[in-house]
C-alpha cells in the first residue's frame, strides 16, 4: 500500500457492517484508498457497492445503533478517526471534513432560514457572532453563485430550486474551509444541465480554496471531467484504482471494462450496441467468497469464485485485483469499445 506523504486521508482495510433484523449486512469488506492534498478522488460503483457507507464512515455519520466497525482504520492528521470520541468528531465535522449530500430537496431543514443554516457552523466553529456571521453567509452564497444573496439569505429552502439548494448545501459544507470535502452523489438528483453547473462549481472552488474532494458517484461521465484519481468499488471492496487517464485508457479489470462499455457515447452511431452488465450486485447478507464480481463476469474462472485475487500493480498509482493478471491465467483482450476510449 503506497503511503504517499501527500495523503491527507488514508483508509486502510475498512470493514463496516450493519446489524439488521435479517442478519449482518456486510456493506464494506476491506476497502483501502487514500486522498491526496488538493486532488479529487472519485469512488465509483453501483448502488449497493458500499461507497456511501464508506464515505459516511469517514465522518462517522452512520447510524450509531446498528453500525459495527469490524476492522480497519481511517487516518486523518496522524490519528485514527474511528477511535475518536464523539466530542472530537464534532470538532472535525465542519472545519476539517465536510459533506455534501445527494438529495438537495431533503438535505436542508425546511423550517429554518437558509442563512441561519449556514451561520450555525460559523458560530460554533469559528466563533463568529451576529452580523459578522450573516455577512460571511452572504459572501458564501455569492461564492457558490446564488444571485441576490442578501435577500436570499433570509429565505427558506422551499423558495429555492433544486440546483440552488445544492449550491446552498455546498456553501454550508465549505463555510469553515474544510480540508476535505466528501460529495456523496452530489449531482445524481439533478437535471443534466444543472449537474454540469454544480460540477463546474466544485472544480472552481477546489482551484480557489484547495480543498481535497472525495467524489462518490455511479456515473463515469461525471468522473471524466472532475476527478484526478479513481477508485472502483464493487461488492464492498475496491477492485481497481488509478489516475483518470489510466482508468479510462488502460482499465485492467472486467468490471471497469463493463462500466466503461456501458456509457452511451454521443459520438457513437446506432450500430454500436449499448453493453450493460447483466445481473445485480451480490447479496450483502451473504457475500460471495472470492471476487465479488464473479457471478457477472464474462471472463470468470474457477478460482475467481474460490478466492479473492491479489493486487497487481501496473504503475505507481494503478493497481487492480483480478485473477486475469495471474501468470497462469489465459490472455484476455478487453472488448473493443474499451480500448482507446476517447
Amino acid at each position, binding site marked *: 500500500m503506497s503511503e504517499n506523504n501527500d495523503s491527507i486521508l488514508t483508509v486502510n482495510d475498512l470493514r463496516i457492517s450493519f446489524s439488521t433484523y435479517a442478519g449482518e449486512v456486510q456493506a464494506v469488506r476491506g476497502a483501502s484508498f487514500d486522498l491526496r492534498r488538493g486532488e479529487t478522488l472519485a469512488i465509483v460503483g453501483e448502488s449497493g457497492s458500499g461507497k456511501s457507507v464508506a464515505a459516511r464512515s469517514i465522518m462517522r455519520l452512520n447510524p450509531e445503533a446498528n453500525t459495527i466497525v469490524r476492522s480497519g482504520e481511517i487516518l486523518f492528521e496522524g490519528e485514527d478517526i474511528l477511535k475518536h470520541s464523539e466530542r472530537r468528531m464534532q*470538532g472535525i*465535522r465542519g472545519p476539517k471534513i465536510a*459533506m455534501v*449530500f445527494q438529495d438537495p430537496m431533503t*438535505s436542508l*431543514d*425546511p423550517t*429554518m432560514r437558509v442563512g441561519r443554516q449556514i451561520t450555525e457552523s460559523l458560530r460554533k466553529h469559528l466563533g463568529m457572532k451576529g452580523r459578522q456571521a450573516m455577512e460571511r453567509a452572504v459572501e458564501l452564497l455569492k461564492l457558490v453563485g446564488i444571485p441576490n444573496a442578501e435577500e436570499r439569505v433570509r429565505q427558506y429552502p422551499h423558495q429555492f430550486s433544486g440546483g440552488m439548494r445544492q449550491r446552498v448545501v455546498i456553501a*454550508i459544507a465549505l463555510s469553515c474551509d474544510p480540508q476535505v470535502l466528501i460529495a456523496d452523489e452530489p449531482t445524481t438528483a439533478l437535471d443534466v444541465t444543472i449537474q454540469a453547473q454544480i460540477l463546474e462549481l466544485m472544480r472552481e472552488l477546489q482551484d480557489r480554496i484547495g480543498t481535497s474532494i472525495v467524489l462518490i458517484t455511479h456515473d463515469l461521465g461525471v468522473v471524466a471531467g472532475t476527478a484526478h484519481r479513481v477508485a472502483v468499488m464493487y461488492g464492498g471492496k475496491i477492485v481497481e484504482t488509478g489516475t483518470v487517464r489510466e482508468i479510462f485508457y488502460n482499465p485492467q479489470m472486467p468490471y471497469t471494462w463493463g462500466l466503461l462499455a456501458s456509457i452511451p457515447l454521443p459520438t457513437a452511431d446506432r450500430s454500436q450496441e449499448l453493453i450493460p452488465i447483466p445481473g445485480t450486485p451480490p447479496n450483502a447478507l451473504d457475500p460471495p467468497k472470492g471476487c465479488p464480481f464473479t457471478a457477472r463476469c464474462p471472463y470468470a474462472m474457477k478460482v475467481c469464485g474460490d478466492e479473492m485475487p491479489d493486487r497487481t500493480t501496473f504503475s505507481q498509482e494503478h493497481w487492480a485485483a483480478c485473477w486475469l493478471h495471474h501468470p497462469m491465467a489465459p490472455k484476455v483482450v478487453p472488448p473493443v469499445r474499451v480500448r482507446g476510449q476517447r
Partner: protein
Amino acid sequence: MLRYVAKRLFYMLITLFIIISITFFISKLLPGTPFADDKLTPQTRAQLFEKYGLDEPIPVQYVKYVFNVAQGDLGNSFYFESRPVTEMILQRAPVSAFIGVQAVLFGLVVGLALGIVSALRQNSFLDTAAVVVAVLGVSVPTFVLGPLMQYWLGVKLGLFPIAFFESWLHSVLPSLALSVFVVSTVAHFVRSQMLEVLGQDYVTLAKSKGLSGLAVIVRHVLRNAMIPLVTVLAPLTVFLITGSLVVEQIFSVPGIGEQFVSSIQVNDYSMILGTTIFLSALFIIALLIQDILYGIIDPRIRVIGAKE
C-alpha cells in the same frame, strides 16, 4: 395567508349553520310542548311565544331561530323555570373549563416529555414502557379510568376527594382522569413524529456540521417534529367535550357536561339542543384555531401561501 384564513372561516360558518339547522329540525320533531311549565304567567308565556314565533309557520320560526342563536340566545330551559339556556351554560362554564384546561396542560407536558424521551432512547425499557402507557391510555376509556381512580386514589388511599367541587383538590382526580388520554395521544404522536424526523436527511446534514447532539435535537428535530402537534388540537377538543360529560358525572362536578347529561334524563330539549350548539361551536372554533395556527407555524405555508 389571509385567503387561507378567510376560507377556513367560511367553512366554519357554514358548518355552524348546518348544525343550527339540524338542531332546529330536531326540536320540531321532539314531542312535548315548550313552556309547559305551570309557573309561567300568561304574559310571560305570550312573550316567549312571540319571541320564538311558536304560533307562526315553520319557515318563519326557522329564521327567528337562526337569528336568535346568532345573537347568542339559545332558548329557554324547559325544566328550570324557563331560565335562558345560554345563561345556564355560561354559569357552569368556568368549572368545566378549569378542569379541562388543567388536564390538557398537564397532559401536554407529560406527554411531550414521554414522547421525546422514548423517541431518543428507542427500544430501551423507557421506550417500551412509554408505548405501553400510550396504548393503554387511548384504549381504556375515561369512564373506566374515572371510577378506578376514584376507588384507588380517592377511597382506598384517601388522597383526594372524589366528588363535588369545593376546592382545587377536588379538581385533581377529574383532571387526572382526563389527562390520561391526553398524555397517551400526545406521547404517541410526538414519538412517531420524532422518529420520522430523526430519519431525515437534514438531520444527518446538521450532524455533519459538527453540531452537538443536543443542538441538533433542539434546533432541528424538535422544531420539525412539533409543528404537526397542532393537529392534535381538534381531536383533543372532541375528547375534552365528551370526556367532561363522563368525568363530571362520575365525580359529581357541577359543570356543563353534568348539566347536559341531566337535561337528557329529564328531556329538557331546549337545554339539550342549546348545549349541543354550544359544544359544536366550541369544536368548530378549535378546528379553526388549529388550522390558523398551523398556517402560522409552518413556514412552508406562511411564506409562500397555498400548498396544503
